[in-house]
């Protein structure tokens, strides 16, 4: 292999960087973390022009022999499906680290915090790049460790409870997936009469027998449903999102939840297409219920961080629905919406953190009129809120429109009901924005004190906050006006998934066609 192993570098740079962070002086750790994330992002961005947009299939492929007798290989590759997720991960990790300035002041533990954030980023890059199902699983499990510790060690008052719940939910899902991974290799290899393998392109070529698809679908979807927060498997999410420090939540909701959608598109849809269609009524119904149910929960939440947790879950339901539409529009929508949702939800949690840092509480009822003193924060908040409610012209619209359209085309009842969410979405986002920024100033309480300058000057955006928010807001505009930037490069991968799922019976068994 003479080619520069850029994919391995993208995966292992943050992981090695994490180890180095532990050895650095306290004051250097924050800067080091940002530097590592920045380089990782630069490498991920460099892949975008280097990848051939027209060609389907993996590029920059890397192979290494590793436990070949167990069918486990070290294999990485990138295609249109994973291309932008690498940059998303790099970007959200970077802005989350920049916004972790308060955490960076927390003394000795800063090194651990930075190391865990980098480890999480590296594990997620691994998930997005692995082309061997077992390697995918290893990175999947590796994500859990730093995520759990970040919630459990650096979170709010109920962090221990939230962290345990997070681990329990994901561990149950992961164990079922592990059984699925092994069963998948066994079924395919015995059916095709070849030796045990978990190499994804090989599995795709051999095909999975229809009789085994149902049970394998359920095993993998157990993990993906939990991690994507599909109703009713979302029990861990609101607590974890509320208790984790905001930059961690930005990464968990913005990127980690996407690994589940990625798994559906990378593994479930092409390998179990028959089961996908069989279970569409079930998953589609759960997605639609979740979309509307979480929107209603957001509508009545009093803690604005919890409100955002439900906002995130509701929009994740739209992505799941797009995936299960299994047509070009739905899948294309899901792929680009993963990126758009990640950008928006990260920005929203960072803005929530900026508000909480200034006032010290999160209860909406205590707020009002902050825009009078914080015009730039209010502007950033309004733009992000409008993007979140799906305003046409901003980035979320393109993805959700395609996902709704795809679902509507398959079954207008699902698509129509899901599209209804735009109404409560406008309602809850404006309730949040106006509740904090507009209306009459409260006469007493923390906001009144802050407005009166009782605890020092109420300052508008600090430079760290500017730095974190500007790239996100720029992308909200850019990807809203030029979404073809994304769709042009994801088209081939989308077509590949659609084609794979249209083969109702796998080629290995052989049919008379028709």
């Amino acid at each position: 292999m003479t080619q520069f192993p850029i994919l391995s570098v993208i995966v292992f740079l943050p992981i090695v960087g994490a180890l180095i962070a532990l050895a650095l002086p306290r004051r250097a750790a924050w800067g080091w973390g940002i530097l590592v994330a920045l380089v990782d992002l630069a490498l991920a961005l460099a892949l975008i022009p280097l990848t051939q947009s027209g060609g389907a299939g993996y590029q920059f492929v890397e192979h290494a022999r590793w436990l070949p007798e167990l069918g486990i290989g070290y294999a990485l590759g990138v295609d249109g499906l994973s291309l932008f997720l690498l940059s998303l991960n790099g970007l959200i990790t970077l802005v989350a680290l920049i916004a972790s300035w308060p955490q960076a002041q927390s003394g000795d533990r800063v090194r651990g915090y930075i190391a865990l954030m980098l480890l999480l980023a590296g594990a997620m890059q691994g998930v997005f790049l692995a082309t061997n199902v077992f390697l995918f699983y290893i990175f999947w499990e590796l994500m859990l460790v730093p995520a759990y510790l970040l919630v459990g060690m650096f979170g709010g008052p109920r962090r221990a409870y939230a962290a345990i719940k997070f681990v329990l939910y994901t561990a149950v899902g992961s164990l079922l997936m592990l059984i699925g991974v092994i069963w998948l290799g066994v079924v395919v290899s015995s059916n095709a009469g070849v030796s045990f393998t978990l190499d994804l392109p090989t599995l795709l070529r051999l095909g999975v027998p229809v009789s085994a698809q149902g049970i394998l679908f359920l095993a993998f979807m157990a993990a993906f449903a939990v991690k994507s927060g599909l109703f009713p498997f979302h029990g861990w999410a609101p607590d974890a999102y509320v208790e984790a420090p905001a930059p961690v939540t930005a990464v968990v909701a913005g990127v980690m939840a996407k690994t589940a959608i990625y798994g559906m598109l990378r593994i479930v849809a092409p390998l179990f297409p028959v089961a996908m269609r069989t279970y569409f009524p079930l998953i589609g119904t759960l997605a639609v219920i979740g979309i509307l149910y979480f929107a209603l929960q957001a509508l009545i939440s009093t803690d604005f961080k919890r409100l955002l947790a439900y906002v995130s879950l509701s929009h994740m339901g739209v992505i799941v629905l797009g995936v299960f539409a299994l047509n070009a529009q739905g899948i294309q929508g899901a792929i680009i919406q993963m990126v758009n949702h990640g950008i928006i939800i990260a920005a929203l949690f960072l803005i929530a953190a900026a508000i909480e840092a200034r006032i010290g509480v999160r209860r909406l009822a205590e707020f009002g009129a902050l825009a009078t003193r914080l015009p730039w924060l209010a502007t950033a908040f309004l733009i992000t809120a409008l993007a979140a409610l799906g305003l046409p012209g901003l980035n979320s619209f393109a993805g959700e429109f395609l996902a709704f359209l795809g679902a509507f085309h398959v079954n207008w009842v699902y698509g129509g009901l899901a599209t209804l969410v735009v109404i409560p979405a406008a309602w809850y986002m404006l309730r949040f924005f106006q509740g904090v920024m507009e209306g009459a100033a409260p006469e007493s309480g923390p906001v009144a004190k802050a407005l009166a300058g009782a605890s020092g000057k109420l300052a508008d955006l600090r430079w760290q906050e500017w730095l974190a928010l500007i790239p996100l807001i720029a992308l909200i505009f850019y990807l809203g006006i030029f979404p073809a930037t994304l769709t042009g490069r994801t088209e081939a991968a989308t077509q590949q998934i659609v084609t794979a799922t249209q083969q109702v019976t796998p080629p290995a068994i052989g049919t008379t066609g028709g």
Partner: protein
Amino acid sequence: MLNLTPFILLAPLVGFVALGLFGRALPRAVIAVIGCGVVLIGFALAVADLISMLGVAPAQRVSDVTLWTWITAGTFHVPFGLLSDPLSAVMLLVVTGVGFLIHVYSIGYMEGDPGFWRFFAFLNFFVFAMTLLVAADNFLFLLVGWAGVGLASFLLIGFWYTRASAAAAARKAFVVNVIGDFGLLIAIFLLFGAYHGALDYRTVLGIGSAQAVAPTSVAPGGVLLAIALTLFVAAAAKSAQLPLHVWLPDAMEGPTPVSALIHAATMVTAGVYLVARAHSLFTAAPTSLVVVAVVAGATAFFAATIACVQNDIKRILAYSTMSQLGYMFMGEAAGGFSSGIFHLVTHAFFKALLFMCAGAVIHALGGEQDIRKMGGLRERLAGTFWLFVVSGLALAAIFPFAGFWSKDAILGAILQRATTGGAGWYALYAVGLLTAGLTGFYIFRLIFVTFFGAYRGAPVAAAHGGGHAAGGRAGDPLAGLHLPGLALMAPMWVLGALSLVGGALDLPGSQLLSDFLAPAAPSAIELTSALFWVSLAAGLICALVGIAIAWSRYGQGQAPAGDEARVGALVVFLRRRWFVDDLYEGAIVRPILALSRGLRFGVEDDTLEAGSRGLGDAVGSLSAGLRGLQTGFLRNYTLTLFLGAVVILVYFIAVSQ
């Protein structure tokens, strides 16, 4: 043929970006020049486009520019393109022309406001979004403009955002408008299915296409009806038709120039534009036009009745706008699409002027909006008074003012439709006549109560600058009256002239506008037919009767205070707006919130607890070791997981061999 449409959009966009980023630091004069200048540039370009368009044959008056590919997904491919045709040309002229006058008016009206720069930035943004709405060449970018004007409306209704009532009104307007966006989204999804992914007007509506495909050949009747009705949901929300009208009266919380521009002259007419634009889809599903007729007739009458009892000067005009929009839709329902657009144009002139006059009165009285506290302003505000009368006569459709020609074109179209359509259309015509009478009544009630008799309000505080106070004797309650300056009055005079002669656009015999619009928006009636003259006479008589009743009750400037005592239940019913707002609150908003809370306690809290309860003992034992969790638990967990994996793996490999 010229197509300068991209630049017509670009000008106000540049204004918005420049003022939004740097406006805070700029002096007021610069802000005013930028804010008004970019709209004037837009207007000049629109005029240039029109002149160039008039120079070519009617069949070639369509031009389309594609700027970039917005999105691709399988068979779905949407470019960002702009269309220039007679209908968009008329709309662009109204939006930039009336828009420019209202921008100039705003210089005077908002002169003392600390948010002066923000106001002009938002106004420019509105003009940008509205020009996009009318110039888009496909339904998706129509939706982008559609939502954009909704956002502009939200920003401007809530301009004084620390007022809780303004913030609430802004939110209400936005959410109700999103219901319309939902309708438009569903319509787009249905069109996507029917036209195999195409959403452009050329394919779907046959605009500028020699071989237009009949909608009935691409989709079954049920789908066509669903498309037309979902489009009308969007139109009804934007144009405040029943039952999606509830946001418009509350929108009067915004500054008065906003009411004139967005909530009278331009944005609220977007629905009328949409129905005219998509008229081939509506006529392909005739049932949809019956629905439009019923909703529009009901709205026109409903809103006029409420306008008769309101005492807030701006709310009277808001209900009047609803009612007039109902007229426009009635004309379209009867097949008179060009009549609907004609009334849209004249209404933009005289309703913008009515709001500007109201604004001048409110400005003069230091913010007072209750007509019971006005009266006797005829001599002090003579210019405003006469302009109010001109625009009032135009609204009431009195010969020869603009509204006379346009409203009676609509009534004539309905009468024409009734000769073939049957009793239902005669009933609609009757509603139209009755509403014409109510219109004459409510607008002259407003004028008489405001300007006639004696002043009934509290003394007006002295003018802010002192520069243009009315002066006068000591003890005069109107001594501090703030007389409108040139920035306010100049645009009003222009609109006054247009309200007077605007009917000349489409006079019987010349038919300039309907001939110009004919390829884009057909008309239903020959303006020279006998039927039209009968209709003109009937409409005029009804309006005069309404004015006469207003004169008899309020001609001496009587305050409308005693209405409740005299009419009782009916007036209360009207004051409560037919209880529609209460119905919304009781039947929709509260139940949704109650349902959400029920789900929180009944489902969500249980789901959240299931992690600990469902896994019972596991959690119990783990919580016991909580304090040492960083070390013990995690290592054990990871170890167990990997050991388990290895065991299972070995087992399967053994089995499979």
